[in-house]
C-alpha cells in the first residue's frame, strides 16, 4: 500500500515537473516565434513552408487514405443498422456522417495519425541531435536551440494540422458520398443538400480550433521529449515511444474537453 502511494506520488511529481517544463518551453517557443517572424533575414534561412511541406504534404496521403476509408466504413455501418431496424430510408446518412466527421471524429483522427507520425519523428530527430552533441554545439555557437529546432516545427504543424483536418473531413465525407451514390441509391444532389443542411459554420471553426490546440500539444511534446534525451540510441527509442503515448492520450483528453466546451 505504502509503495502504491509512493508510486502515485512520484508519478504526480513527474507530471507536475513535465507540465511546468512544457509550459516554459511553450513560452520560449512563442517568444522565439515572434523573434523569427520579425527577422526577415532569419526567416529566409529557416523557411517554415519547408516544414509545412515535410509535415503536411508528407502526411497527406496517409491522412486522406485513413479518413476516406473511415467515411466508407461509417456509412456501411449506419446503413446496416438502418436495415436492421427495418428502415430503408438512407437519406439520413449524408447529414449524420458529415456532422459526425466534422464535429467529432475528423479532428481527433487526424491528430492521432499526426501524433504518431510527426510527433514521433520530432522526438527521434531532436533526440538523435542531442545524442550526437549537435544541440550542445548550437548552444556553444550561441544559437538558441528553441528557435533553431522547435519554432519551425511548431509553426509548421500549426499551419499544417488544421488544413489536414479540413481535408480529412472532406475526404471522409467524399468516401461516404461514393458509397451512398453508387450502392445506396442516394442521388448526388440529395447527398450534397443533406450534408450542407446538417453542417453548421460552428462545426468548421470548432474543428480548426481543436486542430490548432492539438498541433501545439503534439509539436511541444514531440520537441520537449527530444530535448530531454540523455545517453544513447536506447533513450531515443524510449522517448519516441513516450511521445506517441503521451501526445495521443493528451489529444484524446483535450478532444473530450473541447467537444464539451463547444457543444456541451
Amino acid at each position, binding site marked *: 500500500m505504502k509503495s502504491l502511494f509512493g508510486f502515485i506520488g512520484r508519478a504526480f511529481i513527474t507530471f507536475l515537473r513535465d507540465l511546468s517544463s512544457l509550459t516554459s518551453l511553450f513560452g520560449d517557443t512563442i517568444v522565439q516565434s515572434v523573434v523569427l517572424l520579425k527577422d526577415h*533575414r*532569419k526567416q529566409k534561412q529557416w523557411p517554415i513552408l519547408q516544414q509545412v511541406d515535410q509535415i503536411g504534404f508528407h502526411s497527406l496521403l496517409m491522412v486522406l487514405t485513413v479518413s476516406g476509408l473511415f467515411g466508407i466504413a461509417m456509412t456501411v455501418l449506419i446503413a446496416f443498422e438502418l436495415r436492421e431496424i427495418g428502415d430503408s430510408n438512407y437519406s439520413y446518412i449524408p447529414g449524420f456522417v458529415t456532422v459526425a466527421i466534422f464535429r467529432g471524429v475528423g479532428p481527433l483522427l487526424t491528430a492521432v495519425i499526426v501524433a504518431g507520425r510527426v510527433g514521433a519523428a520530432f522526438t527521434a530527430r531532436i533526440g538523435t*541531435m542531442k545524442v*550526437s552533441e*549537435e544541440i*550542445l*554545439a548550437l*548552444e*556553444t*555557437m550561441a544559437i538558441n536551440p528553441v528557435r533553431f529546432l522547435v519554432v519551425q516545427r511548431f509553426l509548421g504543424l500549426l499551419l499544417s494540422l488544421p488544413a489536414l483536418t479540413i481535408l480529412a473531413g472532406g475526404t471522409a465525407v467524399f468516401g461516404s458520398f461514393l458509397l451512398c451514390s453508387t450502392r445506396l441509391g442516394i442521388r448526388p444532389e440529395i447527398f450534397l443538400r443533406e450534408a450542407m443542411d446538417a453542417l453548421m459554420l460552428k462545426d468548421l471553426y470548432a474543428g480548426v480550433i481543436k486542430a490548432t490546440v492539438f498541433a501545439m500539444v503534439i509539436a511541444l511534446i514531440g520537441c520537449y521529449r527530444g530535448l530531454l534525451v540523455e545517453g544513447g540510441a536506447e533513450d531515443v527509442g524510449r522517448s519516441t515511444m513516450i511521445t506517441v503515448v503521451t501526445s495521443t492520450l493528451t489529444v484524446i483528453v483535450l478532444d473530450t474537453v473541447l467537444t464539451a466546451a463547444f457543444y456541451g
Partner: protein
Amino acid sequence: MIKARGITKRYHDRMVLDGVDFLAEQKKITYVFGTSGGGKSTLLKILIGALKPDAGSVFYHDLDITSISGRELDPFRKRIGMLFQRGALLNSLTVGENIALPMREHTVLDENIIAIMVKMKLELVGLRDFEHLLPGQLSGGMQKRVALARALALDPEVVFFDEPTSGLDPIMAAVITKLIADLNRLLGITCIVVTHAVEEAMRIADKIVILYQGRVRAEGTPQEIRASSDPLVQQFITGNPDGPISFHASSKDFREDLLVG
C-alpha cells in the same frame, strides 16, 4: 586568459573533479591530458560554460562565466570556438551551410561575403571542394576538419578541442595536430586541447596539464613534464601498462567480490 579556480564537480556520488585549478595563457597551446573517464571532458564542458561546476569559478579575461547563464553567456560564446569529439556538425545542412551558420546568425554580412568566407575557412582545412556535400558523406577525419572550419567561422580568440585526433588514422591525426599548431602560430589563436594522445601534446604544446582522479597531478612545459620524477607522470608519457595507475577501475577486492557475490 582562461582561468579556473577550485573546480569541483560530482556526478551522483562520484567525484569527477576535485578542486582543479587551471590556467590557459593567451596565444598559447595548452594541453590537458589524463586517463579515460578522468574528468577531462567534464572540465572542458565547464570551461565553455556548458556545465556548471558544484564549486569554483571560471574566468574568461575578467568575466566569471560560472556566475552567468543562458543568453548572458552569448557574448562569451561568440568569442570562442569548439571542436567536438565527433564533430557535431548539423547533419541536415551541407558542409558550406554548417560553416556559414554562425556567420548568418551573428553577423550582418551579405550572402556573397559569407560565401567567400566559407571558401576561405574550408581552404584553411584543405576541403574547399566539399562545400556542397552533407556531413554524412564525409569520413570521420574530414568531418572533424569541417567542424574545425565551423569553429573558426567567427574568428574566435580561443578554440577548445575535445579529443581532436581520437579515432583518426596517424596521417590525419598529424594533419589535425599541425592545423592546431598553425592556428596558434599563424593566427595567434589560444588553443585548449583535451586529449590522451601524449606524443602530439609533447610536440606542439606550450603547457601540459595532467589530470588524475579529478585533480591536477602535474603541469608545466613538455620539457618539465618529461623531466618529472613522479612515476605516475612517467607512466603517462611512456604509456607503460605497469606502474602506479592500475588498469583495474573497480575499488572492491576481486577475491572478496567473487566470494561474497
